[in-house]
């Protein structure tokens, strides 16, 4: 264990102590011999990449899973919860990554659910709620419907649901992933206040900026093991990152680093050398694209944008503001209610996916598993799913050739799998995404690449690789539309950014770190 610093001597007893906790899922060692102390009144961050065991750790503490080995002590007593209900009665509450709210009900009804039986005095509960929100310095209308709330407000409802139980340990699993920049700040403030009231807060994250801002202490997980701890995280960020990704910060792609919040601005946007022979360069023109859904709600409103060859335009916005509809229309999966898309002189609005592939439009879909690949089929089959015809004689598949081509592509794009023949589901998320990207980027005469949330759920190494490939596609003359809910990612990779809010373009700006706040405000619907 490469301790960044020997833990400081503590005067008080730990609130929660984990000793040598191990958890396996089948052959997968999710958490191995993890030991951890949580002190009362501290904000303790658990840092680690995807798959490092962070969520497993939370789920063990919250009683979702039972550890295979090791012991937990809570408030000095042996603690072994069999279910979340046990954890709640012991005084441990958790906000999950995915909310569990009843959308048609009000805030106060959602809070009452599961806390009380029999007759309910809704007004008293509402008053209690308001008092609580007041204590922690945020506003929450108890009578608002969940449907009318923003994602950040919904998260506050989840937080209130926990805090009203007056927990002594408060777990938050990746709470900032869904939030706007200023909402993140507010959340961290709430965490601080909760800790000041004597409750311990465990905050799971992979973003270093949050650690700098809020953490008293940090524990770093990698591959299910505790690899570092720090009592002064703000001063030891570099060492923590090294421990998290097991590598040097300098070797890290600068954009990926800025996404983690370790490098401030200065994202290296230098392009790789342009190949000597570039394909015909076509500009993309999107003209007044409008999508009205089955309920008559306008999901995308008069979206107009042009992308030059070799340009990366980012689409920022909180999820659900028209990005999915935009991507679906461009990729030929849905018909727009109005508007046109042109690639050069060719109108592509009504082309089907096969024809889009033929004219050189590559698509990295937002939902990798349901649109990007067929998990049950082999890696090779998936990597050429849209071009199986290239490996056909008289209808028969030339499987050996397909396998060889796939192997070559896997080497080029660093897709790690035992062989091209293994099921796609056997690949890690990062490798799956690289494979999808490889398929779409190597389209013959690629002139337009649409990448929607291309780094979601990927670890740092894979993120860097994805950025590299997107830049390479752009360097060879393709127009790139990058849809992402990670503002840092857009600032790092795109040339300019348009902001979507409720289906409309709120504004257009250059992708500079100095524009962050302006973009954040536009994402929240404030016209600039």
């Amino acid at each position, binding site marked *: 264990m490469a301790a960044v610093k020997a833990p400081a001597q503590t005067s008080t007893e730990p609130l929660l102590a984990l000793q040598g906790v191990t958890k396996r*899922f*089948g*052959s*997968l060692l*999710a958490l191995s011999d993890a030991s951890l102390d949580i002190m009362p009144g501290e904000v303790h961050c658990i840092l680690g990449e*995807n*798959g490092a*065991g962070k*969520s*497993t750790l939370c789920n063990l503490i919250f009683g979702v899973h039972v550890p295979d080995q090791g012991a937990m002590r809570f408030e000095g007593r042996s603690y072994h919860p069999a279910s979340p209900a046990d954890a709640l009665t012991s005084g441990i509450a958790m906000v999950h990554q995915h909310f569990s709210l009843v959308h048609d009900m009000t805030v106060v009804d959602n809070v009452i659910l599961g806390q009380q039986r029999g007759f309910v005095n809704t007004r008293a509960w509402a008053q209690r709620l308001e008092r609580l929100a007041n204590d922690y310095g945020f506003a929450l209308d108890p009578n608002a419907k969940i449907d009318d709330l923003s994602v950040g407000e919904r998260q506050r409802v989840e937080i209130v649901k926990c805090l009203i139980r007056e927990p002594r340990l408060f777990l938050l699993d990746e709470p900032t992933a869904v939030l706007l920049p200023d909402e993140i700040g507010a959340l961290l403030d709430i965490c601080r206040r909760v800790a000041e009231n004597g409750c311990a807060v465990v905050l799971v994250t992979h973003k270093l900026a949050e650690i700098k801002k809020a953490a008293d202490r940090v524990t770093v997980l990698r591959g*299910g093991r505790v690899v570092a701890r720090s009592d002064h995280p703000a001063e030891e960020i570099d060492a923590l990152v090294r421990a998290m990704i097991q590598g040097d910060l300098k070797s890290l792609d600068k954009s990926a680093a800025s996404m983690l919040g370790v490098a401030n601005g200065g994202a290296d946007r230098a392009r790789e050398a342009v190949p000597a022979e570039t394909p015909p360069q076509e500009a993309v023109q999107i003209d007044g694209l409008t999508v009205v859904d089955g309920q008559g709600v306008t999901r995308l409103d008069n979206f107009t944008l042009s992308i030059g060859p070799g340009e990366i335009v980012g689409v920022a916005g909180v999820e659900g503001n028209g990005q999915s509809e935009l991507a679906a229309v461009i*990729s*030929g*999966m849905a018909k727009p209610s109005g508007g046109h898309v042109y690639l050069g002189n060719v109108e592509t609005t009504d082309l*089907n*996916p*096969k*024809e889009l*592939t033929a004219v050189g439009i590559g*698509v990295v*879909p937002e939902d990798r598993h*349901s*649109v*990007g*690949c*067929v*998990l*049950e*089929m082999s890696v090779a*089959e998936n990597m050429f*799913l*849209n071009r*199986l*015809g290239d*490996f*056909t004689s008289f*209808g*028969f*598949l030339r*499987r050996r050739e397909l396998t060889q081509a796939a192997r070559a592509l896997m080497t080029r794009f660093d897709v790690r799998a035992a062989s091209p023949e293994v*099921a796609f*589901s*056997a*690949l*890690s*998320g990062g490798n*799956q995404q690289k494979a999808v990207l490889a398929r779409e980027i190597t389209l013959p005469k690629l002139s337009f690449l649409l990448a929607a949330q291309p780094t979601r759920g990927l670890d740092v190494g894979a993120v860097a690789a994805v950025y590299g490939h997107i830049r390479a596609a752009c360097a060879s003359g393709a127009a790139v539309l990058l849809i992402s809910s990670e503002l840092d990612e857009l600032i790092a990779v795109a040339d300019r950014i348009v902001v979507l809010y409720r289906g409309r373009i709120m504004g257009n700006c250059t992708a500079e770190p100095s524009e962050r706040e302006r973009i954040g405000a536009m994402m929240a619907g404030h016209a600039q």
Partner: protein
Amino acid sequence: MTDAAVRASMTKSRRRMLRPSIVISVAAVLAAALVGLVLIFALGVSVSEAIAAFIDGTLGTPYAIAASVNRSIAFALVGIGFVIANRANLVNVGGEGQIAVGGIAATAVALYGHVDGLPAALSFVIPLLAAVLAGMLWGSIAGILKIKAGTNEVISTLLLSFIAVWLLYWCVQSPQLLRKPMTSSATLPESLEIPEAAKLPLLTGDYSFPVHIGLPVTIVIAIVAGIVLVKTVFGLQLRAVGFNPVAAGRAGISYARMVMVSLATAGALGGLAGGFMLLGEQYVLKDGFSSGYGFDGLVAGLLARGSVVGVIAAALLFGFLRSGGINMEMVAGVPTALVMVIQGLIVVTLAGAAFFMGRRA
């Protein structure tokens, strides 16, 4: 923990667990047979007599063997059709109706299509083609409903079967359609016998072993189907649509085309089975001639778990079971229902075994 990794390890172990499925299948068949024997004993029938009757009805005479094989041909064709559609994640339960329309079309063309004077094989090939087309039409209706209206193919193929079965009834009841001329009030509700030239040639040419040319045709179809499913791009695309129609669509594989082709093919094979039954064994169209065949074929396809070889094995098993069962009833007085019970037990045992294997992994 990445759930992809967990899922991968699960799929891998599940595959490994299901590898010895032949052993399980044989065990299931034996277990079901044992239960059958116990039931026969409980009925108070002499077990040895029943077994003797069963063997006599399946393997006892060349005629019995041939009858069992002919029965298996129909099961196999419907089963192969089921497997093809199932690759695209479609469940064709309409074998019964597809057989019925195939039989109707074959009879109609054989009787009234002036095929009698045609040269050589055409006089039975043309009625067979009519049967194939009729079945294909029946399967395509379900395909169109699925694509245009999103109708679940389980519902549409099942209901189309009812339509076909009642269409058959109408055809044999109505003298304006296929009923033979009414000469007296005792005229049976059935068609005339098809002309000699339209009857399928027998492999041996000998009526004591009446296996018709449907056997080699079915073997060829099974081989072709196996190759198409495993070796061709079409087979791969069918699989892609079956696993993930959205991703397949994004990759340019037309869902509509795959649904149409697979349901039409399944229907065509059902129609062919009906044609074989009419032109190869029964020669006269009667009400209920397809009864049970479609569903037994469906079960054969279901048990085969996507393998064409498996379909053949299951079809043979059911073909011989049925023949033996009929003889048991006639000779030993064991109700045929018992054979159905045994068949059902085999299905339940196999499905249960697969379920528990899956769970253990």
